[in-house]
């Protein structure tokens, strides 16, 4: 019976977590219908993916940039629409970005914005649909003035340290996203529209000129302006008109794609098309010819896209090649091809869906009949899937490390795959040493949970998970020692909690009766919990003190009662308490395991919760959904603990009653069944 319940529970947990993982992938209720949508050619997309650009402080491929941009706006990395002949069309981030840059009229119709709260839509004066829904730019554009007005107001309130309500925060976020989107769709406006020269054509008609052509005459234009100024007169109307157009177009291209490596090696910031135009027109560019060439290349590209898709790919490739060359000359190109491979390998996704998930399912099936051939086959399956998952996970972590050129843990996201890999690895080693099947069972489940968490984190934040390190963290020695040790300490603490959980669940579900083997398994589990607690203490203590020593190097104090430091200290204290409680005889089997399980709460407080307090030196951005996840986790552990304690007390009471009954009727012992 217990096994069936366990099987059911396993399936329910896996199913629940799976749903959580794919929540962002659930199909939209109704797809946008765009019969005229022409999908991009595969080779065009491949070329576009590898265009190097600089964003968030590092050089990366356009594919990565597009992925996070789409994630921040839409909450996922795929748009599905109904195209020609009612066929479903899948639009990837790179295709979406190509649409926004080269076919804005199409991009405006794509459902690019996810609005989690329909109140935001109502607030800006539109008619809301579902509570959470996706909208296209075209649908939102009717409310654009109101949205921007509110956005400006809320930004000002934020500057004045006023607290914004939930709806206000979401409205401000939407306004910013719409602004970002406009920076994309307007990026190549200069190449599409050109400059209209009033009265310059035949018969006094207007004539359209390329911006690059105008840039070549920048000296002349500036001369006209200077002359007018010298005479104390206003510049001629057609010049004023021209300048206004150039200002508008260069502004539209100023905040989008920083795709142009600057010619000066000392200049660190890459340039946008807008920077290039503005630099030449104002005479502040150190490389006007290069700037004109850049703008000409973009104009040619845009002009080609409209007419010859095949040629477009060829020109895009040439343009990408020139950008790569310039990036290489600056010594900044190294991570781009590696990151493209990393994106293609999709290590964590594959480890999650093709290794740990099937591993966890095989484990559940094994629970039904752990003995015999079936059990052995399932165990072998779990081994294979877990090892494969661990391999992919490790490959992903190593490749990220190579891309970032630093040790594997430097931000909160990094800790998740690292801890997951740590737990899976230690569980597999423990299984190798013990061969009881228990540690083996932990491996795929923890791998699965860890990677779901990583996925939720990445999707929830929608920001680059390979962001560069801030000054204080830029020390490979300390990142290697303190951060890795403390993170391994979290992993060990969680593993101890999982072993404790296994003990508690086995007891509650009746896996372990009072038979000899049952008692032996209990003792084994408790010893294992104890062993992992020892290592948690070792790693957390060393990690914490190393952190202190680092802080002493960086800030001049070993200990500053920073929330993250306090969290680490709490883990140390809790594990010390378990070990000494056990030595003093206050914690026995139940006590040790329940205490280790509570350790998960202490680890979570240190790993996640302190970050949401918003104070201290280790404070990172934290969203409401993560807060909710943390509290739900506390609740879940609390429930299991209560059940465990209840069961333990009940068991004790039953044993006591049995003993009393036995003592009053000594003769009954003879009737007790042999064990």
């Amino acid at each position, binding site marked *: 019976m217990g096994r069936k319940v366990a099987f059911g529970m396993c399936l329910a947990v896996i199913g629940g977590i799976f749903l959580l993982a794919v929540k962002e992938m659930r199909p939209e209720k109704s797809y946008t219908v765009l019969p005229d949508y022409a999908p991009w050619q595969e080779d065009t997309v491949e070329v576009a993916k590898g265009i190097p650009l600089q964003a968030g402080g590092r050089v990366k491929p356009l594919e990565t940039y597009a992925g996070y941009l789409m994630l921040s706006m839409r909450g996922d990395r795929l748009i599905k629409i109904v195209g020609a002949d009612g066929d479903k069309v899948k639009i990837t981030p790179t295709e979406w970005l190509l649409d926004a840059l080269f076919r804005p009229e199409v991009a405006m119709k794509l459902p690019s914005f996810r609005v989690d709260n329909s109140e935001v839509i109502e607030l800006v004066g539109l008619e809301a649909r579902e509570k959470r829904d996706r909208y296209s730019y075209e649908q939102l554009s009717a409310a654009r003035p109101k949205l921007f007005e509110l956005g400006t107001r809320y930004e000002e309130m934020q500057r004045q340290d006023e607290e914004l309500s939930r709806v206000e925060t979401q409205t401000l976020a939407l306004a910013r996203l719409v602004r970002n989107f406009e920076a994309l769709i307007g990026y190549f406006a200069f190449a599409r529209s050109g400059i209209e020269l009033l009265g310059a054509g035949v018969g006094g008609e207007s004539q359209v000129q390329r911006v690059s052509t105008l840039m070549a005459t920048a000296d002349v234009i500036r001369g006209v302006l200077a002359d007018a100024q010298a005479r104390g007169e206003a510049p001629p109307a057609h010049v004023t008109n021209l300048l206004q157009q150039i200002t508008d177009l260069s502004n539209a291209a100023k905040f989008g794609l920083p795709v142009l490596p600057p010619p000066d090696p000392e200049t660190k910031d890459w340039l946008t098309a807008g920077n290039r135009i503005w630099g030449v027109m104002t005479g502040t560019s150190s490389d006007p010819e290069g700037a004109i060439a850049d703008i000409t290349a973009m104009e040619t590209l845009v002009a080609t896209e409209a007419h010859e898709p095949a040629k477009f790919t060829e020109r895009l490739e040439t343009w990408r090649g020139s950008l790569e060359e310039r990036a290489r000359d600056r010594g900044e190109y190294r991570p781009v091809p590696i990151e493209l491979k990393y994106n293609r390998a999709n290590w964590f996704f594959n480890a999650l869906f093709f290794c740990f998930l099937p591993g966890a399912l095989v484990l559940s099936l094994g629970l039904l009949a752990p003995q015999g051939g079936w059990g052995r086959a399932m165990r072998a399956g779990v081994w294979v899937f877990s090892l494969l998952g661990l391999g992919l996970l490790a490959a992903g972590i190593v490749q990220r490390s190579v891309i970032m050129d630093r040790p594997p843990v430097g931000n909160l996201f990094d800790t998740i795959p690292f801890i997951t890999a740590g737990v899976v690895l230690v569980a597999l080693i423990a299984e190798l040493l013990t*061969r009881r099947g228990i540690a083996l069972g932990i491996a795929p489940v923890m791998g699965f949970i860890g990677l779901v968490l990583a996925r939720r984190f990445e999707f929830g934040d929608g920001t680059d998970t390979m962001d560069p390190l801030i000054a204080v963290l830029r020390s490979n020695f300390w990142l290697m020692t303190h951060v890795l040790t403390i993170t391994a300490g979290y992993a060990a603490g969680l593993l101890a909690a999982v072993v404790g959980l296994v003990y508690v669940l086995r007891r509650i579900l009746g896996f372990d009766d009072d038979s000899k083997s049952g008692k032996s398994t209990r003792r084994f589990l408790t010893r294992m919990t104890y062993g992992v607690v020892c290592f948690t203490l070792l790693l957390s203590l060393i990690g914490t003190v190393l952190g202190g020593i680092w802080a002493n190097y960086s800030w001049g104090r070993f*200990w500053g009662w920073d929330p993250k430091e306090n969290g680490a200290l709490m883990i140390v*204290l809790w594990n010390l308490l378990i070990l000494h409680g056990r030595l003093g005889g206050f914690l026995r089997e139940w006590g040790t395991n329940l205490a280790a399980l509570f350790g998960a709460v202490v680890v979570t407080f240190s790993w996640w919760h302190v970050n949401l307090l918003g104070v201290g030196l280790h404070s990172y951005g934290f969203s409401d959904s993560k807060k909710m996840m943390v509290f739900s986790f506390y609740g879940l552990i609390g429930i299991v603990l209560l059940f465990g304690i209840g069961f333990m007390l009940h068991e004790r009471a039953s044993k006591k009653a049995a003993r009393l009954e036995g003592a009053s009727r000594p003769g009954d012992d003879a009737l007790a069944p042999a064990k």
Partner: protein
Amino acid sequence: MESSVANRNKPLAAKVVEFLSGYALACILMLLLLVLTWLGTLEQVDRGLFVTVKKYFSYETFFLFPEIKGKLVPLPLPSAFWVGAVFFVNLALGTILRVRKGWKTIGVLIAHGGMLFLLLGAFVTQVFSERGNMAITEGEVSNVAQHYFDHVIEVTEIADGKPAKVHVIATRHLEDLQPDDERLFKMANLPFDLAVSGYRVNARPVSVSQGARGPAEEVIDGFFLQAREPEVEAERNMPGAVVEVRAKDGTPGERFLLSTASFHPATLEIDGKLYALNLRKALWKMPFTVALDNFTHEFHPGTMRPKRFESEIRRIQDGREEPVLIKMNDPMRRQGFTFFQASWGPQNAAPGDTLFSVFEVVRNPADKWPEWSLYVTGVGLLVHFLMKLVLFITNQPKRRVRAS
């Protein structure tokens, strides 16, 4: 049964030592430290770090009532300082009396020794360390740091238009004063004494025409001290007080309103001699002078994420100069003082503007103790747990060989 009888017959001192060295006390203390750390972490969100640390770790208080989200929790808890002190005793006695001495426990003994040293280091740091900061503009020199939290009332004798001799009263002698209280400071080397009253930890001088004044607030020269809530970041507090210059025979003299927020000191003339009165952050003289030659900072391209900041300085002492580069994670340690790269400004400086660099200055006799204790504890724990692991593995029942 026998043991409990034996226990009952033990002398009281032995029982006390047994309790003090026992696991029960150890567990209670660890739990208390854990709970105090947790509550302190939550409380610093509302109250600020300085105030919370003072509340939880001061040796002056024995009990405290925690607050969660600004609400008092009616649960008296012992001060973490005293819990730590008892923990030290428990750890020392436990190590000496309880832990078995032998090869099997060598790791535990070493680790406990390391922890005792760490706790001792924490105590020495808490009691004897000093911290402050020194801000220097490029091209300028300084040989004084400013304390973060300590303020002083300064009386400066002025001779020939220049400060000649400075007399100070530390404001820690004032912090227990209620606004209505007055405290007289006998100034041995001055022709007058100072009576200080109306001391506020955080206040601003406000013109009577601009602010609503309470009945208790004294007006001096058209200004009064408007009290403010203490800042969450305690180093931002600007104390204020009313100072009366009193003749040695007790005759009341001129009254001044002193505030850290004031730009200029108050001046008075007695017997033809000029004095300046000021309330400011305490200064801390360094044994050497620091000249800032150049400060450079760099952000990650296109972001406001700091990538690097460093100061090229010269340390000048007895006419000798030593060039030093101070940067993040690479401080300057000289003569017991450590200079850390802390911050810089002005934040809105344009390229080419003159910048200033701020160094955190620390003197801590136990500076390196945690590092040494880490080596000791780490080795101890590693030895112990590796021994345990080997035992765990070797004690595993042999794997059942499946019948073919």
